[in-house]
């Protein structure tokens, strides 16, 4: 059947609906990619660690990789609407063809989507591995984090075990959080640093990052933990090393 078609019809890209669709595809891809990536990076705010910069970049790249897909879906569907529409209670006349398949289109579609998918997987794996390696090789400050309904508290184990409900971190110094819970599950999430790990009763989980900008950031609980889950949050203060040492000593620890 397809051989018959190719002899009777002009090449597919010369058909008017295909031209329309390709035109719309280019336009939609540009619009979707541009607006979505701008809105996303605005909404995600400015990063306070390399993890978060990487995540924001990745979201941007994923968006640009996904824009042609979304653009294609939009272009094709809108082209079909621009074609032969029919209103009323009675059906339109039958379509002018009875094509049941197009192995070429199907194969292209599957191969392209597989490639996109593999790109996402490989890129994602590389990034995870990079984060993981950084965490293990650096010589970090260790901080014990305990979640208890509905308050976080911190033990600065490398600073004489000072305890506080406030989280202060020195800038540009890797930090490793050892997270646990005394009761239900919580999730330790520093929004602008793009790190998160659950606090489980009876286990210690780990996550780490290197804050790279002095400022005040947000720590939130990201796992429903009961009555005051909404209030289980705290400011994270990233300060200079000198300020950090002063603060820790003030809390009864040693610098």
């Amino acid at each position, binding site marked *: 059947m397809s051989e018959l078609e190719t002899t009777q019809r002009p090449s597919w890209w010369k058909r008017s609906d295909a031209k329309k669709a390709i035109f719309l595809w280019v336009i939609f891809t540009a619009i979707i990619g541009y607006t979505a990536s701008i809105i996303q990076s605005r909404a995600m705010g400015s990063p306070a660690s390399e993890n978060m910069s990487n995540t924001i970049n990745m979201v941007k790249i994923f968006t640009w990789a996904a824009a042609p897909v979304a653009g294609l879906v939009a272009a094709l569907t809108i082209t079909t609407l621009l074609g032969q529409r029919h209103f009323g209670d009675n059906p339109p006349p039958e379509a002018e063809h009875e094509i049941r398949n197009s192995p070429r289109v199907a194969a292209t579609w599957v191969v392209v989507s597989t490639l996109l998918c593999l790109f996402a997987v490989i890129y994602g794996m590389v990034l995870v591995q990079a984060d993981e390696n950084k965490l293990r090789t650096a010589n970090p400050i260790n901080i014990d984090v305990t979640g208890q*309904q509905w308050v976080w508290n911190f033990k600065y184990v490398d600073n004489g075990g000072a*305890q506080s409900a406030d989280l202060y971190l020195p800038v540009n110094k890797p930090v490793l959080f050892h997270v646990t819970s*005394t*009761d239900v599950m919580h999730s330790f999430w520093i929004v602008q640093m793009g790190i998160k790990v659950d606090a489980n*009763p009876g286990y210690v989980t780990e996550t780490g990052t290197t804050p790279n900008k002095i400022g005040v950031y947000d720590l939130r609980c990201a796992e429903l933990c009961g009555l005051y889950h909404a209030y289980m949050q705290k400011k994270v203060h990233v300060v200079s090393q000198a300020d950090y040492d002063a603060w820790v000593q003030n809390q009864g620890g040693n610098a």
Partner: protein
Amino acid sequence: MNKRYIAALGTVILGAAVIAGIGTYVASAKNDSRVLEATPAGTMETPEGTLPHYTLDMSAYPDSMSGSHGADGGVHPDWVSYGPVTNFKVPAHSVITITIKQYDSGERLSNDFFATVHGTLDGTATLDGQSITNVDPEHVGHTFTLHGLADAKSQLFVSVPLPAVEEADMPDSGYTTSPRVVTFSFITGDAGEYVWNCEYPCGDGTTARFGGPMSTQGYMAGNFSVVKA
């Protein structure tokens, strides 16, 4: 307008009214809607200058017969509770002195962090007339722990342990005549909505024991509004 749209509009209005009715009903169901306002007590010298001073008095009971739940204790007479109410209102940028009478016994905290006084003036509290910075984590009855959203505003975090009444002093019925009295002061920041709860696991559950009264406003948790003076 078409008749059919008017009828549809009628359904929308009716439906919205039903939902609004259900919403109003659900929203009005509060365990404790009463609010206690702090009492003015002149001014006080603090490291941050002279500030208006206010006081609040409350108690922590081993049951619900004396809180806001009526003489019969309400639905859960055996639940531990704070009283006389569990919602408080205090002015912003002021010193608040809270006095808590603690009538309950207690045991070991699940987290020693809460055996230490946090966020008060000088980091101290007064226990039965003596100044303390921390108590024995093995004998804590309850805690009063105040916290809120991490907004751009100043963050209030106050946590004070309330030591347990000795088992020997716990009568078989009624309350002990010698409650532990804890007093502490702190400075409020900008106006905002905060919450407080107890951090001694004294409720239902096996791992966590934060169920029942611990997870219900009107018992061991409530609202704490800081309003513009």
